[in-house]
């Protein structure tokens, strides 16, 4: 047990180590670089590898090779680097590669402001690679959650053989908080299910579309095949429309069918409330303050803070919306996750975005004012 004063990026590194991460590759970029610094401090000491690539493409490429050789791999970047990861993220999806990708978001577009926070990469993350396959993305609200969700991200990557995104923000990554990481209750560690010995290995085998294939690492007893091209369950190229669709249904189903299992959130429901704030990331902490202040002045209001952004936790969002007439969605962007909320609401519900991208946090009073809660 120990109380420490840590920045979010260090908590990410510690969460990764708690999940037995043994391979890290990254390229310097503010505000994500210190994740690499901490990993360089922690990973080699446990026998793993931490390496700087010549660019982001090489960094994620190293991770894909290592992950398929059996490593638990992670990379960390910020928005500009995510752009360069894009094509390899598609490879991770089609190759069913467990990988954790940290995006410590900063003010964009383009190079933007390196040392300023933002949440501008939400829909970019959802649609970050060609083909539009579903992805898993988690978003911590605090240094503690950065630790917890990094660990969970590894579990999900292993469980579903997919890249999992941790979408954080300079405002958590480089903000220090008093935390006791050892006191945080974590779920049991999940490791990818290995293919049985003796049997012939089929790298993408499934019976039901939502099944997750067993894994055999390059260098283990089976011969392994991995390909960026459209392939069948054996990893051989295919041009069959039927097999092609079956594989697409598989990538889709294994993530989407597990949406409820992947859904993480904190809910603060007030009986009879007709107003609901839906938030995520650092902004959910401003929302928490806004809710307290609104209630203090007699407003009946509920709050849903999402830790899982994708797949969209539709069940919990729909349940939280019951009886609600007005939904407020504060975001440090010009309105991104609100698109996923809008498609779930009943026509009579109004959805109000509280948005800014001036590189500062959205304050509780801005939520109260723009949400018409004063």
């Amino acid at each position, binding site marked *: 047990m120990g109380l*420490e*004063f840590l920045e979010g990026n260090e908590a990410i590194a510690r969460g990764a180590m708690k999940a037995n991460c043994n391979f890290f590759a990254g390229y310097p970029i503010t505000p994500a670089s210190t994740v690499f610094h901490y990993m360089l401090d922690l990973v*080699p000491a446990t026998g793993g590898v931490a390496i700087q690539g010549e660019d982001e493409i090489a960094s994620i490429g190293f991770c894909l090779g290592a992950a398929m050789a059996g490593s638990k791999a992670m990379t960390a970047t910020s928005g500009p680097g995510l752009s360069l990861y894009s094509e390899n993220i598609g490879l991770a999806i089609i190759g069913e590669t467990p990988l954790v990708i940290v995006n410590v978001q900063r003010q964009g577009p383009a190079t933007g402001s390196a040392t300023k926070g933002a949440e501008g990469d939400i829909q970019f993350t959802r649609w970050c690679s060609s083909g539009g396959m579903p992805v898993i993305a988690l978003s911590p609200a605090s240094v503690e959650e950065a630790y917890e969700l990094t660990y969970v991200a590894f579990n999900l990557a292993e469980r579903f053989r997919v890249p999992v995104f941790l979408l954080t923000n300079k405002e958590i990554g480089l903000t*220090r908080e008093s935390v006791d990481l050892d006191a945080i209750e974590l779920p049991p560690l999940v490791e990818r299910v290995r293919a049985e010995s003796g049997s012939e290995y089929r790298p993408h085998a499934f019976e039901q579309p939502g099944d997750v294939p067993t894994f055999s690492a390059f260098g283990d007893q089976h011969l392994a095949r991995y390909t960026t091209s459209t392939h069948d369950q054996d990893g051989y190229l295919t041009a069959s429309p039927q097999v092609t669709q079956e594989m697409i249904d598989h990538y889709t189903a294994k993530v989407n069918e597990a949406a409820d299992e992947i859904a993480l959130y904190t809910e603060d429901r007030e009986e009879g409330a007709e107003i609901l704030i839906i938030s995520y990331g650092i902004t959910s902490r401003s929302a928490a303050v806004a809710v307290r202040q609104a209630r203090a002045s007699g407003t009946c209001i509920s709050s849903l803070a999402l830790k899982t952004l994708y797949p969209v936790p539709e069940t919990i969002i729909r349940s939280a919306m019951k009886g609600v007439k007005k939904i407020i969605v504060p975001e440090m962007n010009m309105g991104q996750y609100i698109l996923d909320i809008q498609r779930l609401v009943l026509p009579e519900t109004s959805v109000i975005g509280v948005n800014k991208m001036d590189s500062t946090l959205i*304050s509780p009073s801005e939520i109260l004012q723009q949400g018409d809660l004063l």
Partner: protein
Amino acid sequence: MTAITHSTYLTDKVGPLPFCPGCGHDKVVKALNEALVRLQPDPTKVVIVTDIGCIGLADRYFNTNAFHGLHGRSITYACGLKLARPELTVIVLKGDGGCGIGGTHLLNVARRNIDITLIVANNFNYGMTGGQHSVTTPVEGITATTPIGNVEGAMDLCRTAAAAGAGWAYRATGHDPDLGERIADAIREPGFAMLDIWEMCTAYYQPRNKLKKKDLTNMMSLANMDHGLIAHTPRPEYGVSIRKSWQSAKTSTKRRMIVKPQFKHTVTQQTGIIIAGSAGQKIRSAASSFAQGAMFAGLKATQKDDYPITVMTGHSVTEIIVSPEAIDYTAIESPDCFIIISEDGLKKSRARIAKLSDICTLYVEQSLDLPETRAKVVRLPLMQTAKKIDRLSVGTIALAAVCTDRGLFPIEALEAAVSAFQKQAIAEVNLMAIKAGEGLFFGIEK
């Protein structure tokens, strides 16, 4: 000599090789097979890594592991595989197109000297997309995109890699009778080794340029690129070297800084403190020690820094919140204490100073000219005090002064944080700074 147990590393499971009649890739695949038969590695420990390009179709014809990745990126996957599992024999098959788009990976694997083998099936154009020119298309070469002759210079892959540090580089033609042996040499080489194999694209480059088999050697001399061993300068392999250096470092260098609350505080509500100074004044580390001091007194704390990307110049503004309760919103809208140490800090804070209310106390270095403010102003000889100790201790002096003036928590808690977590020489300076900061208010009537 090793007993031959694998008479071939090719599989007939997926049918005959897919290449056009007369394509040089056939010869490259067969020569690689010959090399593997010579070396007799365990097939489960061999990974053939390819990317997009006709030669990228070859991996599945081998009865080994196969990793087929993005265009031009095969070297990166190969490096990841090798670093994660050094016992693997990792062989990259790529085309001249891949060497263009992935040129940086070629330079960097050569520079790092990671023990993979790179075989470039170099046929001077993009066969998969219609025969466009590549980085190795000879000058005057006719391609779909150089219809009246190439005017770009052709890249000498071997000498480029050698200049970047490749320990072993060899230029061959697909017709060389010893190609299998030379590939075996490359695989045996304990660092990065590459072969640039010139061969025929019978679909595009050969007919467009009316090439004959013997022309490949002539093309080399025309381009002033030698046939044979171009570089052999072995040096330490990256994976071996880096693991050795990590082993000598042994354990994690950073200590965990565990705070054990042992003092009492008098803070009843969330308190926001902004400290604004200049880069290089150790504002952020003084703030961290202050926050850790608060934690020693049982408080929760957050620290949010603002500074330009050039960390040694301009402002350094840090927001610290201490609170008996959990802290949600980490920015400070209405600070309780605002400390201005330098001109840079003042400049960055002018807009905020104008908005301060009378609940805020503004502690300001006495030499600075303050704009009009509603906050209560306390002028302090911060720089003068720091000069007597160490000018880098000015942040600690200021925070110790504020802690004393506000009676937030015992100064001993701040001393405990400094003593526990700072290097001894620095701690000694900062302990003096704490005393000096305390002295600015100690005994002063309020």
